[in-house]
């Protein structure tokens, strides 16, 4: 139990681990999916899986926004970045995501004006400062990030900024979960719900999981103790034959979410009929575009983007990793051809990606275990 001393309350961590042991049926194998990449990161960093009984398996979910961007969207971004006079802005995590031939970082080296920003509001400021240039923001993220883009666009509209636009790649968390629950090759027993997404959407969107699929969901914080506690709550529900949405992270997540965020999202975005997810294929009504009221800020309309569908590289098994079908180290190129420095797949690029998290922390934990 080498990691427990790093917890906010080490004794409590140990106590929860012991309680977990008493809740499990030794004849049963449990698969619990942590939906959010932030949880995956904590799990590997703190060796949480080492504290669990052998028959409780944590399965990593699709909740890393960088990981699910398909190559065709990266290619579209790069094509826009190469337009004359364009300043292309994106989060730092996007810079090394492979498109079919290049990354945005490589496009920058080839002369495109690609700039990393901390916030979409930084992109907006760059647009204000460069009235004779077209400034494009490559928006990515789940519901945690989408309100930021929406509020930025509202401000752009209020200011009448004509040289600002946005490639909208925002995705929503519920449709891929439904797709996973429908998938025959994966039997999941419960879900650790994504804490930060829930600050925006609240608990309500997750009720379909117990209602339609009879599985528990526990919305969880990000500290190791939070995650352990959430696993305990899931196992308790399973043992008691219950399935409901519980909120372990109530100190931050209100059950109803953030109404203001939901309202601006509804104003600025509309659902796309389909969107491609890396490794998961097309999922209907799983992503957002700009609403008609904001069409003038839509970079896909302003620049004719190629929008070509590109198949994932053959060696890449990100889809299976994102669905939790295989563990990162089971991918054939893991740690050899695919490393954070030279990633083949997206799960290795973002620190929240399961492959990167495992590469950075997990393998050391395993090595330590071996000695």
């Amino acid at each position: 139990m080498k990691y427990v001393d790093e917890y906010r309350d080490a004794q409590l961590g140990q106590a929860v681990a012991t309680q977990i042991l008493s809740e499990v049926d030794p004849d049963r194998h449990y698969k619990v999916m942590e939906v959010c990449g932030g949880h995956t990161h904590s799990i590997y960093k703190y060796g949480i899986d080492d504290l669990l009984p052998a028959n409780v398996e944590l399965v990593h979910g699709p909740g890393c926004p960088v990981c699910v961007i398909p190559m065709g969207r990266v290619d579209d971004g790069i094509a826009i970045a190469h337009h004359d006079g364009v300043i292309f802005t994106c989060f730092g995590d996007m810079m090394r995501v492979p498109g079919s031939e290049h990354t945005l970082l490589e496009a920058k080296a080839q002369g495109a004006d690609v700039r990393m920003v901390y916030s979409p509001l930084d992109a907006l400021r760059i647009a204000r400062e460069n009235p004779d240039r077209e400034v494009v923001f490559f928006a990515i993220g789940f519901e945690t990030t989408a309100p930021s883009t929406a509020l930025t666009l509202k401000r752009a509209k209020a200011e009448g900024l004509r040289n600002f636009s946005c490639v909208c790649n925002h995705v929503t968390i519920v449709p891929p979960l439904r797709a996973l629950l429908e998938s025959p090759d994966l039997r999941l027993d419960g879900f650790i719900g994504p804490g930060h997404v829930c600050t925006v959407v609240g608990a309500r969107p997750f009720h379909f999981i117990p209602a339609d699929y009879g599985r528990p969901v526990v919305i969880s914080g990000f500290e190791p103790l939070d995650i352990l506690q959430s696993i305990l709550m899931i196992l308790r529900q399973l043992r008691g034959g219950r399935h409901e949405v519980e909120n372990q992270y109530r100190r931050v997540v209100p059950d109803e979410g953030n109404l203001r965020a939901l309202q601006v999202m509804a104003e600025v975005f509309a659902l796309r009929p389909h969107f491609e997810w890396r490794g998961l294929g097309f999922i209907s009504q799983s992503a957002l575009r700009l609403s008609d009221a904001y069409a003038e800020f839509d970079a896909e309309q302003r620049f004719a983007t190629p929008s070509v569908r590109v198949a994932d590289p053959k060696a890449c098994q990100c889809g299976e990793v994102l669905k939790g079908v295989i563990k990162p180290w089971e991918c054939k190129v893991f740690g050899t051809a695919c490393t954070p420095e030279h990633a083949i797949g997206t799960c290795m690029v973002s620190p929240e990606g399961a492959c990167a998290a495992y590469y950075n922390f997990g393998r050391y934990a395993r090595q330590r275990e071996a000695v």
Partner: protein
Amino acid sequence: MCLAIPGQVIELVDEANQIAKVDVVGVRRNINVSLLTTDGDRARPGDWVLIHVGFALSKVDEEEAHATLDLLQRMGADYEQELEELKASVIE
């Protein structure tokens, strides 16, 4: 970009656009706090907030803020990177 970092509100610098100056482990930058304006509530100096890509996502209490910062600091490189990006940010 996936991290949410706690910071403390120093002052509201632009009421109309809901821009506030916050302190994140000694780094002072502007962020947007309009998501906190539900139910007649709003960001006030001294409040601790969780910040994600330049926007306050929610208020947290001080103990929660310190515990989260502690957790982030132990994350190492990813947290350092996020702070560097925050430092480069100029929101008006």
